[in-house]
């Protein structure tokens, strides 16, 4: 019942379901926005006024600034007023993405391809991890960092590989920071990352709805809406979230230009980020980078709603389990052994 309610809410929250633009689904601000009220017009006019005003001040004050510099600061200024991604119309999403692409191009000289592709119908992503096959090589970790443009300076990683001694699954006694040849004698390995819970505690606590569960089950963050309070980080029982404590640094030649708004586009300091099942890949029908990089085939990704998918086969034929099930988070990440 609860799940159904959540689904309904998620559906309402996707702006695509409000095509006529004059409904009263959703709540609060959303309602006001969806109704073509005077207030919205006023806000828009106000914003436009501010934008033009700032632009004028800018060009008037900086005679020496080049056109590019002026455009840059104009784009920066506009980004300050950017709204919540969930509330944007398709057109607004397109414009926002174009602005982000242009901004990156002006600052770095290369043109990224930022997608705003939404979830497909009848798709719900799930993940399975074969404990028997993982040998602790950590190729998945490296592929993830490359794919998702994570900060190289602090060596941010979404995936942790835990080395357990044979005979027990106790994460407190496991080592997730090992520096020796793998696989180590008498040990086995388990990877953790964001489990994309069906009932995500991190989403519930966010005070500004900057993080939410997409219809295909991926838990995402709007990096431009997040205020950086880190409440979600405290609420996650799986250590699935990462914070940008400083401006993330990625060497220009290593930047992955194939990006998604909710995925691996470049982040700024002071915002949360996390695994998105490589949304820029998965929504194009590809496997996440970690699955592709795994040399032993320990990682399985697929559509839970497709009865012919490999993940469904695993769930049906293997003895699977999930971590910390007592918390009721319903992770979509299963472990199994051969």
């Amino acid at each position, binding site marked *: 019942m609860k799940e159904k309610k959540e689904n309904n809410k998620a559906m309402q929250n996707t702006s695509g379901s409000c095509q006529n633009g004059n409904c009263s689904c959703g709540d609060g601000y959303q309602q006001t926005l969806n109704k073509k009220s005077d207030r919205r017009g006023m806000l828009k006019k106000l914003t436009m006024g501010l934008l033009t005003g700032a632009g004028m001040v800018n060009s008037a004050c900086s005679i020496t600034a080049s056109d590019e510099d002026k455009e840059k600061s104009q784009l920066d200024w506009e980004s*300050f007023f950017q709204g919540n991604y969930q509330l944007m119309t398709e057109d607004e999403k397109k414009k926002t993405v174009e602005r982000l692409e242009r901004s990156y191009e002006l600052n770095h000289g290369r043109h990224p391809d930022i997608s705003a592709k939404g979830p497909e119908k009848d798709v719900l992503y799930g993940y399975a991890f074969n404990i028997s096959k993982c040998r602790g090589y950590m190729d998945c970790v490296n592929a993830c960092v490359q794919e998702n443009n994570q900060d190289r300076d602090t060596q941010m990683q979404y995936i942790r590989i835990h080395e357990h001694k044979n005979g027990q699954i106790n994460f407190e006694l*496991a080592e997730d920071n090992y520096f020796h040849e793998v696989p180590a004698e008498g040990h086995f390995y388990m990877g953790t990352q964001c489990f994309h819970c069906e009932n995500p505690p991190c989403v519930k606590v966010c*005070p500004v709805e900057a993080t939410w569960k997409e219809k295909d089950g991926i838990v995402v963050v709007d990096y431009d809406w997040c205020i*950086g309070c*880190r409440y979600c980080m405290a609420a996650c029982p799986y250590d699935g979230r*990462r914070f940008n*404590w*400083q401006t993330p640094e990625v060497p220009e030649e290593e930047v992955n230009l194939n990006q998604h708004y909710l995925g691996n586009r470049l982040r700024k*300091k002071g915002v949360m980020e996390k695994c998105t099942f490589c949304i820029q890949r998965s929504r194009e029908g590809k496997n996440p980078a970690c699955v592709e990089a795994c040399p032993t085939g320990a990682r399985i990704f697929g559509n839970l709603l497709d009865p012919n998918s490999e993940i469904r086969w695993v769930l049906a034929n293997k003895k699977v389990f999930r971590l910390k099930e007592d918390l009721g988070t319903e992770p979509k990440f299963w472990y199994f052994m051969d």
Partner: protein
Amino acid sequence: MKQLKIFISLVKDGVSAATIGNRTYHIWMAVLTFFMLLGAYCFNIQLDEGLSATGMNDRVSWGLYISNFTFLVGVAAAAVMLVLPTYVLKDVDFSKAVLIGEGLAVSALIMCLAFVTVDLGGPARAWHLIPGIGRFNWPDSMLAWDVIVLNGYLFINLTIPLYILMSKYQGKIPNKNIYLPGVMLSVFWAVGIHMVTAFLYAGLPARPFWNSSLLGPRFLASAFAAGPALIILALQVINKYSSYDIKDTTLRKISLVVTVAAQINLIMLASELFKELYAPTHHSISAMYLFFGLEGKNALVPWIYSSIAMNVVATVILTMHTLRKNMKWLNVACVLLFLAIWIEKGMGLIIPGFIPGPWGAIVEYAPTWVEIGVTVGVWAMGFFIFTILVKSAIPIETGRLKYQRG
């Protein structure tokens, strides 16, 4: 329109009253200003470098700021312990202390909001929290609740004293029918702000150390000990340096409130200790780290033992009538209690909640100098605001400062 004119005149008179003082007063304000500037400088460094300028990290993601925030919510809530007897139970003894209490609540709340703001990764995006133009995850997020209750409490604690002062300023007697409903509301609201703040932590099953039904009541008990303890100290300072005469009986009555609250707090502490230590489960591991250290890491151990020691000593002093009635001993107890509960909320609650991490990693936390600088700056700002509020309110309350027509 006329009211506005009176209000402007009141603010003008208040400001001029707050800028006049003896040498000690000016030195006090200068010192506070210095620390505020220092805080601003440190905050500037933090804005520039990001929160990596603090001691926080992915493991311990809340630190000194949120600790102080939690503690100060309690101080703000404690003002109600003075409001209740005065306005509702009509205990005249407290009436002079009430205005001070409400001033304390306002300053503490502003400090709370400041601590939350400096803790944000993107303070420039804080407008996303404003209902109407931002997007508010209400009623799901306890943080959204907290924003509402804290700002509401701030509003109540600004308007009630303002109404009373406006009346007295014009030489009128404040109308009870107008302010009493507000006072009643503030009594419930005060309990609300601290309960909601406790729920902020208690609502996280991911952190077993916080996920306790005792957290809310314990927050209230410790707040009603630490807050009035601070008021007792502040009242004596005001008594000494101003014409505002506060009788010893007022202090005695407040000290009774402190005593009972401190005793209840100790009972709850014992109850928590029993639950965590008698039959330790997997969920007691943060308590184990806090009290004994884990894997040779024990940075919080000295903090928690000094906190408990101060708590016990203060409660013993307060419980013995002869000692409590002696002003010197009472002051010692108040200082000890205040410090003990400050440690208890930060090093004893917020930090250990994160240690060990979800997968058992033990990363210790220590604030950096930048973080300490910002914290000191916010505290200085709080004292600054409190001083100005009290300094300008006292002459109006005592009737020395009145509205001059024309």
